[in-house]
């Protein structure tokens, strides 16, 4: 529970911080899912806290923070909402190759997709609306893509990312989850 609160406070802190300056910030929108049948959407607001361009090969290194939110559906099982403050290291090569890695101490909220009945103290069954649960979902990820702004002059980049998360608690311990993102990054101002 302490970890869940920490995730939410971090997320709130980042949202306040990213309001200050829109220079070099970007919006990320992607498909998010465990498989094609567990599908969803994710969006994030990226804010650079460090950026350096190497003069020799014009490659760019960045450290970004990004409040993000994902929604997905695992049919006949649950709907999931993942809110995460992400910390991303990203490198864009001179030809536009994008490589990234990062961490996200995420908050996970899920709603069971079905009518849920709880056993009451006197042994009766009582319907509960919006039944589900809360969990801490620490995540690490690696990604790759192409910054189309570098050579083609387009105003967006594409990327794909593999997330490895651990849901805590899950039954008697924890559950490792894998998920994929495929999407685009839209800078607010041309850099």
């Amino acid at each position, binding site marked *: 529970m302490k970890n869940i609160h920490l995730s939410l406070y971090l997320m709130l802190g980042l949202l306040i911080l990213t309001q200050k300056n829109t220079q070099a910030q970007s919006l990320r929108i992607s498909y998010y899912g465990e*498989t*094609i*049948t567990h599908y969803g959407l994710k969006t994030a607001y990226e804010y650079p806290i460090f950026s350096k361009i190497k003069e020799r090969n014009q490659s760019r290194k960045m450290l970004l923070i990004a409040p993000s939110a994902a929604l997905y559906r*695992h*049919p*006949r*099982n*649950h709907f999931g909402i993942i809110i995460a403050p992400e910390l991303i290291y990203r490198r864009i090569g001179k030809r536009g190759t994008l490589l990234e890695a990062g961490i996200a101490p995420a908050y996970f909220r*899920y709603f*069971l*997709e*079905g*009518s*849920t*009945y*709880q*056993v009451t103290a006197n042994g009766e*069954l009582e319907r*509960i609306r919006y*039944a589900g*649960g809360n969990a801490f979902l620490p995540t690490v990820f690696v990604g790759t893509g192409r910054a189309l702004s570098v050579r083609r002059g387009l105003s967006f980049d594409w990327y794909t990312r593999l997330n490895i998360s651990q849901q805590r*608690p*899950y*039954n*008697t*311990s*924890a*559950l*490792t*989850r*894998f998920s994929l993102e495929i999407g685009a990054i839209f800078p607010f101002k041309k850099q």
Partner: protein
Amino acid sequence: MKTIHKLFTSLAIILILVSCKDQDVEPTEQKTLFLRHKGADMPVWVHGNAQSNKIVLYLHGGPGDCAMCYRYYFKELENDMMVAYWDQRVAGASSGKVDSATLRYAQFSEDAFYVVKLLKQQYPNAQIYLLAHSFGVELAWQFLTTNNNQQMISGLMAVNGMFSYYRWLYHVREWALREAKKQNNAEAERELMANPVTLENTATVNWELIYRWMHKLGGNPVSLYDDKKYLANYAFASPNTALAQFTHSKAYSYYGEVESRLFEKGALLKNIRIPVRLFWGVKDGVVPVEVGRETQQLLTNTSVSTVEFSQSWHEPFITETQEFNNAVRSFVK
């Protein structure tokens, strides 16, 4: 503009017609229910012919296995009855925050009671039958010999499962010894002979050694992973959380080391009054057919029938699916 107007008018007419249809019971039921009890959120998927007013509640094995993952084999039954696939606590797609101290027979039986109660509440006119496999059979005996629970049930189909840990392990060793001799495996024979199973040593005997030899000697060569179609169905069409399946077994160490070793329902089987059909894969080494034959002798106060599957091991519904489903149909009829 005219085209858009026409399109909207047509759509509105279709929607009105659709909403005016009879609100009778849907012929095909597809419902997802969850039972929340003592930390666990346990899914119960109900599929099939709602007009039959018969529900077969599948009690999966394991413990820690899954129910819906076997729908691939039972789906055909849904034409004639409803099948309720229940994932037990810390199994299949069950979730929540569960204390491992609840992983006891008594708790599984209590969960089963509320699952049946929930089904009776949702389908007040339906008769409920249990289809129990392996650990599910242990759960069924626990449930049916507790209080008046059997009054809620119209019949039990027990598939390759035990009523007594002692009699189970005794027969597993006998099965392995027979095979060791047949296969001229001197090492297996020597080790099995050195580990006899008696009523007195049941709680301490090296059961893993006996179990390992049984498997090595071909006690259950059937692997779901060999069936690519099944795997694709599991990965993309089942509501299971694929990786969760591999995390459950860790929670059952107490069950394996203590709880299951004390399991003994032999003396209580005479209290069973509901019809029972025993389904057995006769080549099974995991729960040998002799366990089934002993079960039949102990069920002295009810009608018992047995269906043996000559080409099957531990899961006859996988190896002889058609014959298995026909036997279920004829029992539930």
